[in-house]
C-alpha cells in the first residue's frame, strides 16, 4: 500500500493505492496520523487506486474511522470500485463508514 495526502480547500483527501492487507499494519499508522492531524474536518480516503483489500485491511479502515471520529473529524471513503466494492458490499461496512 502507498498513500498520498492531497489537501483541498475544504477537505483532505488521502489517496491509497496497491493492496491493503495484514502486512500494511505498520504503514497504515501513518495514514491514521495524517487523518488525525488534517486541517479540515472532513477527510476522504480515496480508494480509486486500491486493487484489493483483505479483512485486516477492512479492520484498518474501521480503525481510521474510529480515530477520525475521536479527533472530531468525519471520514468518508471515495472511489470504492472493483474488489474493494465487492468486499464493502459483502461486509456492509458502509453502515459503519460513510461511502461517497
Amino acid at each position: 500500500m502507498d498513500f498520498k495526502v492531497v489537501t483541498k480547500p475544504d477537505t483532505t483527501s488521502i489517496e491509497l493505492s496497491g493492496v491493503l492487507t495484514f502486512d500494511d499494519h505498520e504503514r497504515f499508522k501513518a495514514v491514521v496520523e495524517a487523518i488525525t492531524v488534517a486541517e479540515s474536518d472532513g477527510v476522504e480516503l480515496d480508494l480509486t487506486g486500491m486493487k484489493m483489500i483483505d479483512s485486516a485491511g477492512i479492520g484498518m479502515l474501521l480503525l481510521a474511522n474510529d480515530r477520525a471520529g475521536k479527533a472530531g473529524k468525519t471520514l468518508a471513503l471515495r472511489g470504492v470500485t472493483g474488489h474493494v466494492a465487492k468486499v464493502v458490499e459483502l461486509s456492509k461496512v458502509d453502515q459503519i463508514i460513510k461511502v461517497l
Partner: protein
Amino acid sequence: MTDTRSPKDSDSADRAAIALDDARILIVDDLRSSRMLIGSVLRAAGFHTLEFAEDGIEALEKFQAFNPDIMLLDIVMPRMDGFEVCERIRKDLKSDTPILVQSGLQEGEHRVRAFEVGASDLVSKPINAGEMISRVKLHVERRRLVESLRSYRRRMEDELKSAEAMQLSLMPEAPEIDRISEGRGARVEAFYRASNQLGGDLWTIFEIDEDRFGLLMVDLSGHGVSAAINAFRLHVLIEAHRLNRADPGTWLADLSKDLYEMLPIEHFATGFYCVFDRRTSCLTYATAGAPSPVIVKADGQTELLDASGLIMGVTSAVDYPNQQVQLKPGDRLCLYSDALYEDFNIPEKSLQPEEIADHVKASCESAEPGGFPKALMYRVYGGIPQDLPDDLTILLLEVAS
C-alpha cells in the same frame, strides 16, 4: 596501571566479559610450548575453561568429550593433521562450532585449504596475543548470539505447536461430526488449515434437538496469533450462548454484540450460521459478510446464496434477518473461507463466485464420500496447499438420500 576508563565503559566491558569468560576453549597444538603460551594468553584475557590436545586424534576425542565453544587448531601435527580434524568435525560430527586455524602468513596454500575444509577463521602464527583474543571473542560472541536465536526460535516453534494443537481441539472431530449430522438426516465433511499454524477461522457443529443441528463458520479478521486469540474468545462465546441457537439471526446478533464489547475496534468476524431441520429438509440461515455459499442440487444445478451482511463485532446492535432455502435429498451446501478464491499476489487471478460454483459442482461429482474438501483443493490449487496466505476452511453439508 591506572584505570582511566569511565565507570560506564568499565560497566559495559564487564558485561561483555561476563558474557564470554565462561567460554569453553579447546587448544590443539603438538608443541607443549605453544599450548602453554596460548593458554596463558587466554587466561590473562579472562578465559579459564580451557582444554588441550596434542594431536589430531586427541583433538577429535577432546572435541566430543569437552564440547568446546571454540577450537584453536594447529595444522601440522603427528597422527592426524588439522585439515582432517576440521573436515571430520564438519562432515562426521556435523558441528558448526567455530574453528580458528593457526597459520603462518607465508603458508598461502594452507590458508585457502583451511577455509575449504570448514575453518571459521585464521589466527596468525606465531601467536599475536591481541589478534588472537579479538578473534576468539568475536567468534564466541557470534556463536552465543546464533545459539540464543536458535533456542528462541525452538521455543517459539514449540509454543506455536502447542497453541496449534489447542486451536485444532476447538474444532469438532469426525466421530462428533458424524454423530450429530448423520443422526439428523445429513452428512458433513470438513477441512481446516491455518496459514501460519495459528489462524482466525473457526467452525463448529452442534445439536439443537433430535431433528435439528446448527453449523457455524466464522472468519476472524486478520490471521496469526491475534486472530487465533480472537477465535478462542469467540469459542467461549459460542459455548456460553446456548439460548437462541435455533434462531440463526438472533443468535448471530447475540454473538456480534458480545464480540463488539470484546474485540479491539479494528477486529471483527465474518460469519455464516445455518440450522438444518430433517423434518422439513429446510435450511434456515443468517449471514454476516461471509463468502457466498454454493448449493449443488442432486440434479447438478448450482445456486449461490447471498451471504452479505454487516460483519460481526463492529456495532452494539445489529439485525440479521433469517433466510431459508428448501433442500432435497442429495442436495449439497458448500461453505468456504475467502482464502479459497482470493489471490493477493495476482489480484486478477482471484476466482469469481461463478467459477467457485463450477469448481464445487465438479468436485461434488468427482469426490468419493469424505473426499470433497480434497477434491476441491486439487481443482483450485492443484493439490493440498502447504503454504497458504490465509486460513482455509471448507465445509460440505449433504442431505441424506
